[in-house]
């Protein structure tokens, strides 16, 4: 009986196959064609690593990829620090005035159209006469991703009993030390998950980056998009495959990390 209910029915299998192919078929096609020997994107000409080689000799594309990684790492780090602080303030400072307003304002960028965020940041940078380039994109991406980090960290903070912090204070920690010694280690998996989320969001963003970047500092999505406008080269497929691989690694690492921290929590010995 139990095995019958655990088995997937034919309907389940069909639904699963359709759903997964809807999600992943385009990516699979992209990956397969990145190994295409033919110059034409749509015609299969046998297996080859030629386009990967091409990419590694395309200095402009390499620069753009390097730019994207730097922007992603820097903005993810800034967003993680700011987002974690915001999450702590909102979940621990229960009493302060305007808390509800602050928390809804923090989440507004989640649903704000990216065009609006990009345009408003562009106007700001123009108004304060900031030279557009690496740092303006970093700031823009920090604004975009900070609220995601905050959501992730706040969820974890909400699940942590306040008595941990109180116990730390009771044992001689001032509030700051209590946070560093007890709260931070407990929320660390979600802080790490927040960082990775922010990093992938930054890596992926085209709209905000194209508003806020300047000459000579194009990110990878901007570079790819401008190339594609002139016609799709199979080299783009190779680059995209590399990006997919990078993101896949990040996701696997993130899920492994959260699994390990879950397993630690579930290991409780029976009474």
């Amino acid at each position, binding site marked *: 009986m139990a095995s019958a209910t655990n088995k997937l029915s034919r309907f389940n299998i069909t639904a699963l196959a359709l759903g997964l192919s809807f999600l992943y078929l385009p990516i699979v096609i992209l990956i397969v064609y990145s190994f295409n020997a033919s110059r034409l994107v749509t015609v299969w000409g046998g297996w080859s690593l030629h386009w990967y080689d091409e990419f590694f000799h395309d200095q402009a594309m390499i620069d753009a990829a390097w730019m994207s990684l730097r922007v992603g790492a820097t903005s993810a780090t800034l967003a993680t620090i700011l987002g974690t602080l915001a999450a702590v303030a909102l979940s621990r400072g229960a009493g302060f005035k305007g808390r509800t307003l602050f928390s809804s304002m923090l989440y507004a960028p989640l649903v704000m159209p990216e065009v609006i965020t990009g345009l408003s940041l562009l106007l700001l940078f123009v108004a304060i006469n900031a030279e557009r380039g690496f740092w303006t994109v970093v700031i823009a991406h920090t604004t975009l991703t900070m609220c995601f980090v905050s959501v992730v960290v706040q969820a974890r903070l909400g699940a942590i*009993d306040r*008595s*941990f912090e*109180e*116990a*730390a*204070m*009771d*044992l*001689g*920690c*001032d509030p700051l*030390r*209590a946070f560093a*010694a*007890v709260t931070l*280690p*407990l929320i660390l998996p979600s802080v790490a998950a927040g960082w990775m989320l922010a990093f992938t969001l930054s890596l992926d963003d085209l709209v905000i980056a194209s508003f806020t970047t300047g000459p000579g500092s194009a990110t990878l999505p901007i570079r790819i998009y401008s190339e594609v406008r002139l016609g799709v080269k199979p080299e783009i497929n190779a680059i995209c495959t590399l990006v997919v691989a990078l993101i896949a690694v990040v996701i696997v690492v993130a899920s492994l990390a959260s699994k390990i921290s879950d397993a*630690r*929590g579930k*290991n*409780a*010995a*029976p*009474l």
Partner: protein
Amino acid sequence: MSKDTGNPARAADSNAESRSAPGMPLLRIDAVVKKFGQFRAVDALSLDIQAGEFFALLGPSGCGKTTLLRMLAGFETPDEGRILLGGEDIAQISPHQRPVNMMFQSYALFPHLSVRDNIAFGLKRAKLPSSEIGARVKEMVTLVKLDGLEKRKPDQLSGGQRQRVALARSLARRPKLLLLDEPLAALDKKLRESTQLELMELQRRLGLTFIIVTHDQQEAMTMAARIGVMDAGRLEQVASPRDLYEAPRSRWIAEFVGDINLIEGKLDTIEGSHATIARRLAIVTEQAGTIHIAKPSHPLSRTSVCVAIRPEKIKLSRRAPVSDDVRAINRLEGVVADVGYLGGVTGYKIELDSGLILRSSLANTARLDSDAYGLGQRVVAWFSPEDCVVLEQ
């Protein structure tokens, strides 16, 4: 001060003071008020705790006992009043600067630290040399019998072991005062009873001052030398377990602590003065006739009172006892309406002819049930005037 004279907390406090040795108590809670919005969680409460005392705060949930404890630990700040620890006002001092430690109901063991590091946590903050930290942790581990488990994480321990780690961690800093918030609530019954005895032993051996918050009367009665019963942010009575049970100050206390029979009545008066026969008062009740009670030590201020008798003080017999026995001067006839066998004792409900239900509990001193009373049996319930308590409020 003067405005509180009618306050039971104030009265309880003066009571406590008169019994304690002269000199400053370790802890003096002086007219402390804590408000949450309009709600007064702790309402002008005063209490003295002597050094070396095992004190229990007992009360229904929401009575303010945990709020009071949290104010002693520093997690809440009183809106009014003072908290003096060894003569110093600590009401506004933050938790990490108080020589007070707390054991949390949830234990709050740090999940990312081992048993050893949990116990050493407070010692490291106190900046003790590492050799002393090591020695102190070892001492604590032995004290709570956790030898061999120092390297385990909290989630690799049983409930009882976690409770011990929490205790060791809160004792490691050698606090002047240890606060325990429902420390045994998460343990099962057998373990709870053995841990109660261990806690008492520990407190006596170390000569520490313990304040325990509990909603469990049995626990408070077993462990504490003195119990403060709280209701609605006030102390209703502060007394030893025996006094609390045998001499409750009010109807509320009488009903809150253990089981009790309450019978409303009026003092019988003869020509304006109380009718006193052989140092006894007579109370005329509607439902149980005249009840004779021993004359209370304090004069009664009202004529309409309430007679309280604990169920185990009411004896039953098939026939009326010998008439000249003073201890059986109060005798009421009724029918057995309910029998509840509990092992060591049997609880009976006796329905009097007036409809009043009296509860009586008799110890089952013989194994065979030849003495037991059956449902519907007519019995005489009798009790001594000495066993009645007269309550005015």
